[in-house]
Each structure stands twice: as structure tokens, then as C-alpha cells.
């Protein structure tokens, strides 16, 4: 079987720093995979390469057989890749609903008019933001802004969803609810690549995980196994391995 999403030999250099070194991995349709690794190991950089923030120095990225590498960010979005950012990024001069409409109007399979409004409200209620469509973005608190970002990402029903520490900054109780939300996206069949430092979330959401260290992939497999890998524990988990 050919994977729906496939990365081969992906590399990125920043000046003298090799942030990503020849990384390969595949995602199957509907799979939720955790991308783990110490701070600065290149996870966000991989996300940025996939979504086209900057071009790679080498390697290929394929979604459903089509090459994404080399395409500009907006083309990649139209191919069906959506993402959230490690620090929330929204358009503050647009209302909450307009933020979602933005990706609906321009992203993959654009819709417009009534249909777009309906889909936007649907996405907002999906993430638990019914009725706040007309609110201004700066009036929302941080977690609600994260929700808007998620709604914007999922409204277009992307083929691949990239979540960069979407769950960070929540207390354990809030985390539960958020995990449930991402879980429901998974249950709807979304393919998700999830960067996260919260092991609880990774264990709950990702049957499989990939671990990076210093730009290299050091482990890839069932999450439980990966998290017991000696190198992963040393580089990344430390004492948290037993938690």
C-alpha cells in the first residue's frame, strides 16, 4: 500500500545549523501520529517545511502522490494541508467567524456565500465556540483563540492536519477536554501530525509516534514502545518516562 503522505530525505539548514537531517516518514490515511523530541530538535521546522513557510534544502514531501515541496504556502493549503501555530496566529482585524471564513474561501475546495457561513459556524461549534462568531479576536482569551485557530484549520476538512503544541498551556482538567476534542477529529477520519510535549496527550491520541533529536529521526513506532526506547528516554523524557 502506498502511504497517503510521505516524506523522504527532508533536510533544512539555517546557516551553520542543520535543523532537519534527512528525515523520512509516512502517514497512512486517518492516522494520528505524534512528533516528539527535545526542544530545538526540529519538530516545528518539519511542520514549517510541510506547510511551506520556507523551502527545504533537500528531500521530497508527497501528499496523495502529489509533490508539495517547492510549492508556495498557499498552494499547499489548497492541496489540503492545514495547520496551527506554536504561538497562536490569527487575523485580529477580522471577527472570529471571518477568520474561519478566510480559509473556507481560499483553502482547499473553496466555498462561498451561505454555504461558507454555515460551514464556518459548524466548525466553530465543533471546537466549542458556538455563538461567538461575531466576537473580535483580541477579546477572546488564549485558549479560545487557540480554538479559533483549530476551527480555521479543520473547517476546510483538510487531508492532513498539523497541530504544533496545540495542547500546551492547559491545566490537567482543560487538557482532558482538549484531548477529547482532538480525539473527535481523529474519529472523523482526519489524518493528524501532532507535535506535543505532554505525554499524557500523546499516549491518549497517538497510536504511533516519531521522535526526533538534533534534526534526526531516532525512533518511529507504536507510542508505547517508542516511549520506552532507551535513547528517547535519555534525550527527551528523563524521569517523566515512568509517569
Amino acid at each position: 500500500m502506498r502511504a497517503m503522505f510521505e516524506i523522504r530525505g527532508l533536510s533544512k539548514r539555517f546557516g551553520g545549523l542543520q535543523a532537519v537531517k534527512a528525515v523520512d516518514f509516512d502517514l497512512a490515511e486517518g492516522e494520528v501520529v505524534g512528533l516528539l523530541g527535545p526542544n530545538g530538535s526540529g519538530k516545528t521546522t518539519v511542520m514549517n517545511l510541510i506547510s511551506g513557510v520556507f523551502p527545504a534544502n533537500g528531500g521530497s514531501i508527497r501528499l496523495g502522490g502529489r509533490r508539495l515541496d517547492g510549492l508556495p504556502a498557499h498552494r499547499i493549503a489548497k492541496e489540503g494541508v492545514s495547520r496551527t501555530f506554536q504561538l497562536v496566529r490569527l487575523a485580529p482585524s477580522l471577527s472570529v467567524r471571518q477568520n474561519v471564513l478566510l480559509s473556507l474561501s481560499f483553502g482547499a475546495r473553496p466555498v462561498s456565500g451561505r454555504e461558507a457561513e454555515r460551514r464556518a459556524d459548524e466548525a466553530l461549534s465543533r471546537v466549542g465556540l458556538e455563538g461567538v462568531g461575531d466576537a473580535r479576536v483580541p477579546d477572546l482569551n488564549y485558549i479560545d483563540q487557540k480554538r479559533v485557530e483549530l476551527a480555521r484549520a479543520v473547517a476546510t476538512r483538510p487531508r492532513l492536519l498539523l497541530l504544533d503544541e496545540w495542547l500546551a498551556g492547559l491545566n490537567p482538567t482543560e487538557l482532558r477536554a482538549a484531548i477529547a476534542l482532538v480525539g473527535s477529529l481523529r474519529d472523523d477520519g482526519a489524518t493528524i501530525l501532532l507535535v506535543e510535549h505532554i505525554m499524557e496527550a500523546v499516549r491518549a491520541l497517538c497510536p504511533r509516534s516519531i521522535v526526533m533529536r538534533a534534526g534526526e529521526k531516532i525512533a518511529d513506532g507504536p507510542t508505547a514502545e517508542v516511549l520506552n526506547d532507551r535513547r528517547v528516554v535519555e534525550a527527551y523524557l528523563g524521569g517523566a518516562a515512568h509517569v
Partner: protein
Amino acid sequence: MFEARSISVRYGKHLALDDVSLEVGTSECVAILGANGAGKSSLLRGLTQAGLRERGGVIRHRGEDISATNDFDLVEKGIALVPEGRGVFAELTVDDNLSLGAHPKRARESASERRAEVLDLFPKLGQRLAQTVGTMSGGEQQMVAVARALMSRPTLLLLDEPSLGLAPIVVDEMFAALHKVRDSGVSILIVEQNVRASLALAARGYVLEAGRIVGRGSSAELVADPMVAKAFLGH
């Protein structure tokens, strides 16, 4: 040693912090618990920015009334803040950031000893002294922020979610480091979503809800409190 009385913070019409009072003892660590949007960050901002507070509140540090002190003078008085979003000088190098941490007069003399201590706490920074902070990963930047605050030789360290985005092993290291910082005589007021770790570090805690203090107690009491457990520990 540090006490705040009747602090309120308002953003436009929205009252984010409503008449909050708290104190922190010498070499004591105090945790603030609260849900998203409860006003934890607003509390830390309210303590450090005179312009943001509503009138009427009083803040005293080591016997001195600092209610009207400019925010930049607070560092000189020994209060260092690591804000939400880190507040590092992203365009400057790690080294510059640390040097800037030692900008207050009280920290200048002992700057080199401090630097050695801080690099001991965060060995990773030692290897990256010449790197521009903005090009570091989120977790690395968080370390720079805490390290920079420590450079100012604070007597009170205010931390707003220091473990946000850190790898598990670093979170452990960071809390280990904070234990050492506390034990060296620095008072800490910490806002942290990682409730378990922060209550392990702190002796006491306050619970904040919708801008008001709704509970307080020793760490043990808080952990045992079923309401706290349900709201913040996920039980």
C-alpha cells in the same frame, strides 16, 4: 517579605483582577492556580506594572512601599518577572540577553559569578552563547528567559508558566533548578499549568477564579482538596 493588598486590574470595561491580596515570604515559593482566563497573568502584570493597576492597591516589598514604582525600577528592587510569552530579546544573542539580565546596578558586580551559576543550571545555554535567541526553539528560549531573570540577582522571582512548551526532561530539569533557586533564598511566585510540579515546588498556593481569590492553603491541603483536584488535577 512581599505583600500586595487589594490589587485590581481592568482592561477597558473588563475587570480581569478583582481586589486580590497575597503575600510571599522570604525564600518561600507560592503557586497561583487557576483555569485559563482566570486572571493569573493579569495578576503578575498587575504586580509589576503600576500603570495597569487600578488605584487603591498597595504593594510592599522588603518593607518598602513600591506601589508607585516604575516597572523598570522594580528589577532594581529585586523583583524579576518572566512573563507569558518569554519576553526575551529575540534579535540579540544568548550572551547579550544574559548580560542585559545583569543590567540593574545591584547585579552588575556579581555578574560573572551569576553567569557561571546560571550556565550551570542550564548547561545547554553555555553551548549556545553566540546564537541569536530568536532562532532557538521555544523551549530553549524559555530557558533564556528564566536564566536572564536570575542574572538580576532577584529576591523575588515572578514566573508565568515557565514550563510551557518544554520537553519533559527539561521540565524536570527546570523544576529541579527552581528548587535550587528557592533554596538559595529567592522567593518565587509561580503561575503554572503543570499543577503537580508547581505544588511540589511551592509551600503554599492561591486559587484564582474569574479574577478573585477563591481558595488558599498549603500545598498539601490544596492537593487534598477535592475541588482543586477536580478543577486542576484532572481527577
